[in-house]
């Protein structure tokens, strides 16, 4: 999956890919203060069509946990399951639902996206990417977007969560890259010196079919140097 990090201070964005095997669960957000955790499990293509390069993997399952509200939300391209204490509710992406619970609002836009807000915490948007059922290689997957991330605490971490705090970077030495359309540069970020590439990634919140190009500085090697530690530090054993 590709990660897009909005850096409002710079009016710019950073992006990186995480290439891991299907089945691996990554911690995206962990806020010990609000008790909110978001994990995503990777899925691959139906067939691993290109072993010469990195495997294409996507977020295939999302788990949103709020320990304070004792609530779990599991989202897959097939269904949405909300567990509130001992109660469980299931929805499909064919449902058009607005659910208002104490501390939780869940809104499903049929076959397109869902929006979930938890208490005073941030709002998350999950985009459904549906692929033609008979597509040879690709399967359905999900996109995950955070809105109002400042509502999470300063202790928030995770592959996305660590970037909810202000982050600064400098770009030096912009020079031609291997792709004529994508120059390379040296980036100084978190006291690291990285070679980055100017590129684009898609934001699907507006147009869930075609997406909108977001220009960004691409950090190679699974975000190495940009993220705290290594991406493998964010691998967790299960969705919840």
């Amino acid at each position, binding site marked *: 999956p590709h990660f*897009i990090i*909005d850096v409002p201070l710079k009016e710019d964005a950073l992006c990186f890919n995480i290439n891991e095997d299907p089945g691996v669960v990554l911690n995206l957000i962990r806020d010990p203060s609000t008790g909110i955790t978001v994990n995503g499990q990777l899925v691959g293509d139906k067939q691993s*069509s290109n072993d010469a390069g990195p495997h294409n*993997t996507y977020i295939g399952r999302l788990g949103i946990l709020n320990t304070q509200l004792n609530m779990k939300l599991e989202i897959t391209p097939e269904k949405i399951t909300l567990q509130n204490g001992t109660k469980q509710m299931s929805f499909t992406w064919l449902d058009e639902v607005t659910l208002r619970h104490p501390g939780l609002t869940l809104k499903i836009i049929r076959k397109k996206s869902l929006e979930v807000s938890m208490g005073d915490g941030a709002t998350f948007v999950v985009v459904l990417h549906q692929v033609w059922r008979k597509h040879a290689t690709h399967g359905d997957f999900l996109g995950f977007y955070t809105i109002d991330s400042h509502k999470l605490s300063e202790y928030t971490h995770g592959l996305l969560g660590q970037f909810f705090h202000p982050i600064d970077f400098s770009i030096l030495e*912009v020079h031609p890259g291997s792709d004529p359309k994508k120059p390379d540069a040296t980036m100084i970020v978190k006291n690291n010196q990285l*070679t980055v590439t100017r590129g684009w990634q898609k934001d699907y919140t507006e147009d869930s079919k075609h997406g909108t190009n977001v220009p960004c500085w691409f950090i190679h090697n699974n975000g190495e140097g940009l993220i705290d530690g290594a991406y493998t530090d964010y691998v967790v054993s299960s969705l919840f």
Partner: protein
Amino acid sequence: IRNIKKRNAADANSDGIDIYSMKVDCKVTSRFSHNVIMSRAVNRANVSKEAFFDVELPKTAFITNFTMTIDGVTYSGTIKEKEAAQQQYQQAVAKGQTAGLVKASGRKTEKFSVSVNIAAASKVTFELTYEELLKRRFGKYELFLKVNPKQLVNHFEIDANIFEPQGISYLEAEGSFITNDLLPLIHKSFSGKKGHVSFKPTIDQQRSCQNCPTTQLNGDFLITYDVNRESPGDLQIVNGYFVHFFAPKNISRLSKNIIFIIDVSISMSGRKLQQTKDALLKILEDIKEDDYLNFVLFGDEVHKWKDTLIKATPENLDEARRYVQNIGIAGWTNLHGGLLTGIEMLNEAHKNGSLPERSASLIIMLTDGRPTKGERNTQIIISDVKNAIQGKYPLYNLGFGYDLDYASLERMAADNNGLARRIYEDSDSALQLQGFYDEVANPLLTEVELKYPENAISDLTQNHFKHYYDGSELVVAGRITDNDLNSIIAEVKAHGAEDNMTFTEQADVEGTAKGFEDQQYIFGDYIERLWAYLTIQQLLEKRNAAKGDEKANLTAQALELSLKYKFVTPLTSMIVTKPEDNEDKAALADKPLEAEASASPVVPSYSSPATSHMYTSVDGD
């Protein structure tokens, strides 16, 4: 070494696929290794399951065969020209039935992976074969095997047989995962021309702890050996092909004149520069007093430590150490300026006779990036460097990290009798740098020319080498065209430390045949395959540096040989057809390239983002 893997190693047997046998069978004859990895598995579940076969093999190896046998039916890989294979592959892609099989993995390896669905109670046997010419470094040959079965295996075995006509002088085997308990299970023996290594742990000995369901077999298994060197070389003839191994010993070392050209652009700051300094300081400890050296640093500007190469006296080395410790970062990457300054300095020193008459000159460049200052067009840089060096000294390019134009570094080094090497960004980068220096630290001969009777041979591999370094070996192979030829004489001419040297070596067909009598280790046409392997490798290297018709010719030659000898090289692919749900599906095994050719430079530019609103997010295209 290989394994059929479960999706999750932790619950090794939970998915019902049981690997009951794995064998790695290596046969080495005269440095040429032929390796067969066989894995047998059974589906003990009552529904069909996917069995995985993952093998890591050395990057320098060529896959030659792969078969998959399911319930007695064998599906074999077919090696085809890449384009033809791709066409077949594309058709299969359109049907959603394909998978690439090989990808670059670690520093030394590439990974071959395949999976197949097998019915309940069915058995599958995977068998992969690859071949490799073992290269002598630091006085030894190394057979590298990656071991990672991911589950306990009833019959696990590594079995290596080595046959060296010169006689084996020592043999060692070790594994990164070998504990004190496993150590006695490595059996190694050698006598005369034969060496044998085996490792066969029982299922209990494989356990990572007592009663654990997980295996401790995970890591590198290395077999190292060397041969006796009673004469400077060894010439062998079998079935109309010959191979000549040349590695003389007891020769005085030449003094060397070495210029280190170091990238100090901003991207080198921090750990990279520190590791470079650490390595240079260590190298300075090892430099001999009769050597000459200098440093050229390039960032925005080019800085020379001294105007000329200076002798490595203790005082000068002290000063060099202080200089290295104070190296700082200096902006952009003026690679062209740095290289030409170093080359001109060496040219000037040779011209004015300030260097020892009998000495070896070499240039080592270390860079982590692409040129961003001065001349940035890599074609012009390559051409300027070649014109400046004019074949006089080898250029070794060390590429630090991944974000560089490694293909151009390779081409530049190949053009100038040197080679490119990657320095992987890791905690041991300084050791990697030192390791490379150690390889070229002791030149013994320069301008080494290996000659054979011209009218009796053809298709000779590279036979002129700029330098011969202690601990290495020069290998030349060729085809004998004279059917009546019973013997062959090789003459080697080279410049040594004291005078010019000539070595001769003679071999006769009967003599070689006698040497190989009763050797079960020999896999038939090994010299012919060794010749083909070496020829393909050299054609591919030349091809990297060639253009136009020359490139097309080299490609055609390398392709023809790859197909004839069934090697998966960068020009060929292996198509594996496998049964899935009663339909045949294709998969493709390619040789990953170390570096793709780079695009021509463009003026740097980038657009500002659309900032209407953005979210920190994770998604896929």
